[in-house]
């Protein structure tokens, strides 16, 4: 119980330090937070870490000695929350059957749906904004071996990298 109370106090301190950094405290609240920090080396260290983390996230700081150790230590101090134990549900075969049927139908529909994306062993880049216009005559010429009078299909194009192979 004592541990939980200490954690609650730490969280309150953390909130006020964090609010101070974000400029969310009133003038009076900010003065109080600064005064408390001046007399408390632990708070000073924590405030310093917060500043460093902010700088790191903004890309302004490249050298934070002991940051990982401090973060891991802070995580270790966090209380472990256990999920409440749920009462095991009663066995209801009909519901299980319905769920299995739904799953089977979903799986069937999923498999039946036309797949637009095949596995591409090449490194694929995003779809090209401007498809190569000169491809259409090739599609038209291939129609001789495709199926008679149908028009050439609509295509979407992706630039691909052949992974170092000579092009």
């Amino acid at each position, binding site marked *: 119980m004592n541990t939980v109370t200490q954690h609650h106090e730490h969280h309150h301190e953390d909130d006020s330090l964090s609010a101070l950094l974000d400029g969310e405290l009133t003038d009076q609240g900010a003065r109080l937070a600064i005064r408390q920090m001046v007399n408390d080396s632990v708070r000073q260290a924590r405030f310093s870490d917060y500043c460093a983390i902010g700088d790191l996230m903004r890309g302004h700081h490249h050298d934070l000695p002991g940051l990982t150790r401090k973060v891991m230590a802070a995580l270790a101090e966090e209380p472990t929350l256990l999920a409440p134990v749920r009462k095991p549900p009663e066995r209801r075969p009909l519901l299980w*059957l319905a769920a299995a049927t739904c799953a089977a139908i979903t799986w069937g529909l999923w498999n039946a749906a036309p*797949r637009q994306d095949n596995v591409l062993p090449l490194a694929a880049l995003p779809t090209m904004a401007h498809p190569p216009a000169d491809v259409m005559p*090739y599609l*038209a010429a291939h129609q*001789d071996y495709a*199926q008679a009078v*149908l*028009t050439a299909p609509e295509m*979407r194009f992706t*630039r691909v990298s052949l992974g170092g192979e000579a092009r």
Partner: protein
Amino acid sequence: MRAGWLLLLAATTAQAAPPLSQAEAGAWLQKMADAARRTAYEGVFVARQGDSMQTLSISNRPAGQGNESRLMALDGTPREVRCSQTGAVTVIADGNQIKIEKRLSRRYFPELLPADTQALVGLYEVRLGDTARVAGLDCRNVEILPRDAFRWGYVLCAEKESGLPLKAVIIDGEHAPLMQYTFAEVKLASSGNPMKPLARTARLPEVPEPARRLDTEQIVATALPPGYVRIAAVKRRLPNTTGEVEHWVFSDGLTHISLFLTPSGKPVDSVRGQSTHGMVNLMRRQVGEFQATVLGDAPWAAVETIALGLEPR
């Protein structure tokens, strides 16, 4: 609960119809291939790919050792394909002009199977499905399923007596339909009801040959998917363009993949293309001094294998 299990068992059993022996499979395939050529018929069929649909009329008559046929698009731009024993042309109405182009090949529903189907039984397994009714005629579903990932599958519904495919569905590896043809109405000739020969319209003007033989080859295809062979290699003009390109065609008898080689001093970016519904795949890359474009109504694995196997000779 028991009823559910029986239903599941029935569905599983229905799906797992045993494949036919190679002899039986060959007989079914050949019967359907012959019927599409050697039966006299007239009808209207619908071609459907994703959200797009097209209606065409078709007439076919046996002629000599082969057949003559005429297909006409009934919606969209007026166009027609006329096939005889000597070749095929496409006739397109373009404004006030009529454009006539020779085709390098003829392939259309219901004549989708090659004239000789013998090679197909090693590449596809054939299963008999349910009976069905299409355009008022009874037919039997025949599943032609690839043995590997390098070709699409087909489900043809063969008319009970003649074997003429009344319906064709092209499916991917997950059995999802990629394209579908179905007769809306069809009339078959019988011994008591012969059909008149196809009407001859005004004689077509001379059409220049679209292709000529290759003199030399500077590119070699080092890898082909199993069962594919090169069936054509010509120099040709592309529609609405100037200059010639090399056009090679690889096929297993049912699936056709084109390779176009265009001289290109400047290296091109490698590009992958896929049709909206996934049936057509394309890859373009630089090979030596050529821009190589490989495309076909085939799975990506087949297109990729051919494209990546191209090398300067």
